[in-house]
């Protein structure tokens, strides 16, 4: 359906093998890892990461990057908190507000970097500071407890081990991959990332897909903020500090190029799974925080190396 080419399937298999290897390894060396409960808890932890990784993949395909996703996640979360707790909005309206705010910030990143011809790295570095500041201002630096009204999205569905948020994130991954490989916009994202001059000369209005990718990532980050709030039952203006690096690591482990022109949402999904499983497994084995970080760092480099080598052959 998604019209994947043979090479792509092989790529997916490599990542799947890495993931399966990790699962089996942790299953072997720790107790209770291979239980539905543990695997379900891994699944329910990653919806926000999945959504943002999907958007980041599409953006990185164009050759852009967004360092502000962590801050935007924090700010959109406070929007959910403030609108629901202080203003008494209902969840659906708050979700729309959060997505709209994310969209606006993402579009700002896109318009400023594309129209003023500044590297997106710098513009979003600025936004990283700005959005975090806004989050604290909006929340008066206070954590907001939202409670049941928002928790449903993040809690496992009765009978299933996974949450609505996870299912929703999986749908977003499928749609994102479809967007990339089946739509006109998707092909334009690739063209712009691979060779922007050629794309321009071919009659593509190159600014549009680039701005669209930024805006879409912003909107997905807005939705991710809702999922994050639902998992914690509260909105914390500190949420998402350092999140951008986790997202980029997962996307890059999934084989998306930092230089643009090449990337796959499906592979980013596996990248997220690998990173999340690694983290959960290390905790399960009782690894200390420092050790966890050392192992995570090594695995990131090795995973990218494996992917690159496969491609070089």
């Amino acid at each position, binding site marked *: 359906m998604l019209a994947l080419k043979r090479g792509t399937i092989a790529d997916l298999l490599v990542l799947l093998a890495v993931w399966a290897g990790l699962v089996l390894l942790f299953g072997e060396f720790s107790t209770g890892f291979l239980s539905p409960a543990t695997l379900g808890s891994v699944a329910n932890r990653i919806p926000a990461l999945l959504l943002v990784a999907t958007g980041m993949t599409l953006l990185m395909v164009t050759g852009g990057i967004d360092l502000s996703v962590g801050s935007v996640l924090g700010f959109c979360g406070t929007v959910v908190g403030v609108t629901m707790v202080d203003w008494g909005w209902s969840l659906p309206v708050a979700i729309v507000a959060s997505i709209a705010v994310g969209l606006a910030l993402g579009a700002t990143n896109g318009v400023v970097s594309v129209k003023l011809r500044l590297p997106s790295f710098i513009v979003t570095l600025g936004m990283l500071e700005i959005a975090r500041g806004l989050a604290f201002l909006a929340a008066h630096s206070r954590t907001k407890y939202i409670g049941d009204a928002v928790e449903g999205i993040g809690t496992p569905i009765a009978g299933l081990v996974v949450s609505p948020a996870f299912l929703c994130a999986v749908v977003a991954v499928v749609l994102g991959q479809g967007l990339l490989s089946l739509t006109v916009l998707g*092909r334009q994202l*690739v063209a712009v990332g691979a060779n922007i001059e050629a794309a321009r*000369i071919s009659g593509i209005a190159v600014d549009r897909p680039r701005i669209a990718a930024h805006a879409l990532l912003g909107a997905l980050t807005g939705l991710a903020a809702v999922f994050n709030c639902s998992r914690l039952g509260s909105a914390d203006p500190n949420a998402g500090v350092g999140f951008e690096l986790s997202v980029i690591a997962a996307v890059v482990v999934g084989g998306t190029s930092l230089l643009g022109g090449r990337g796959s949402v499906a592979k980013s999904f596996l990248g997220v799974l690998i990173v999340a499983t690694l983290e959960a497994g290390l905790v399960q084995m009782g690894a200390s925080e420092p050790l966890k970080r050392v192992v995570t760092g090594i695995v990131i480099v090795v995973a990218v190396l494996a992917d690159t080598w496969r491609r070089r052959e």
Partner: protein
Amino acid sequence: MILSARHLTKRFGAVTALADVSFDLRAGEIHALCGENGAGKSTLIKLLSGVHPFGSYQGELVLDGQEARFASIRDAQDAGIAVIYQELSCIDELSVAENLFLGRPPRRLGIFVDRPEAERRAAAALARFGVGLDPAAPMRSLGIGQKQLVEIVKALLRESRVLILDEPTAALAEHEVEVLVAILRDLRARGIGLIYISHRLEELARLADRVTVLRDGATVATLPIAAADPETLVRHMVGRDVRDLYPRRSTPLGTPLLEVRDLAVASGRDGLRLTDISFDLHAGEVLGVGGLMGAGRTELLAHLYGTWGDRISGRVQLDGRPLHAGGPAARLRAGLAFVTEDRRRYGLCLEQTVGFNLSLSSLGRLSHAGVLARGAEAARNREWYEKLGIRAAGLAAIVGRLSGGNQQKVVLGKALMTLPRVIMLDEPTRGIDVGAKMELYALVNALTAAGCAVLLVSSELPELIGLSDRILVLSRGRLTGVFEREQATPEALMRAALAAPLARPDAA
């Protein structure tokens, strides 16, 4: 008259690229544009095609009797003007069909690419122009000639009435040029107006109907092809008479400087790429290397320079000393220099200055204990800048803004500044104008007169024959002929170049 340009003037800051140029194109004609590097050819077509939008120039464009004001490339395309640019504009990451429909793919439900439809239409279009390519093939798997053909088909798919080609043959081998010529004649017969830019004057005679010559941004003459023999054209282009295009002055041969014996080279997992290659190159000699595209000429030079392939067997000696492993640094120290065919990609730091690029290979000699002797560097740069007659705003000019011929001189100057005994030139005149070519030929003569040896790869047979003392011909990585100057006729070279039939045709 499909398209007319009236009194166009275009300035870039202090530079006037076009000064009051007028030009017209009829339906069903091939109109050639000639001129030296920097004459303004590319600038003119950028105005015609909306790259420089309306308002950024003076004068007017008239399309079908109506004034045309293009705000963007897209506007010009919608008006039926298509351009094949000097630098290819394909996306390696996409398929042939996707490249063909990049700007406006067939859609389903408004947002989806209708892939089957795109591939069906692509196959039909490719077949119509006799290009036998798989529409689903990734673009990166194509050779440069095939990419060029895809570009042309892409332009034609838009049902353009005006097709502009900026040096389309610069990267093509002779037999691919034939395919192109056939396609262009066909288009002319269908009433399309073509503008054709080329530095290969011989091509024009059999292709063009009229020729317009530009010099220093102004129109010098528009001639019917019958009146446009090469001598006349060159006189218009350079503003003076040019009697002998290839003034090779043979020098008595000296000792052998480069000796290659039974060379066989493999690259990665692709298997053997060069086999059974033996030759000597003497001091004072120009040794030409001919062959079709893909014959392995660039690979031969690159291997000698230490940047390509693993040697399976054979011996290479420079000045009596064996050349082993070691990259360009070791080669340069040993007295072997290399000028690449793709100067923008491999030759220059485009954002840097002329001076920076000129001295880049000679930093060791221009420094003490790792600290640059900036005075000596400036003096040496100035010396070569003048010797080569580089035309730019001085050593501090940014190289990327120079015209092609002057960029080529900078690459050459960088190599020559290392004072090599043997210099390898790969397509040194690609995309440079007659005047610059003449200067380069004179330089080659001066080098051999000074006792250097030159290994010259060129796809232009007249140039190869006119300039070389002896010519080697490669075919599929093998040496299939060695010709003395007297025996080297185009026919003989072609026969040797085709000696071993190609396993898969490069282009249909």
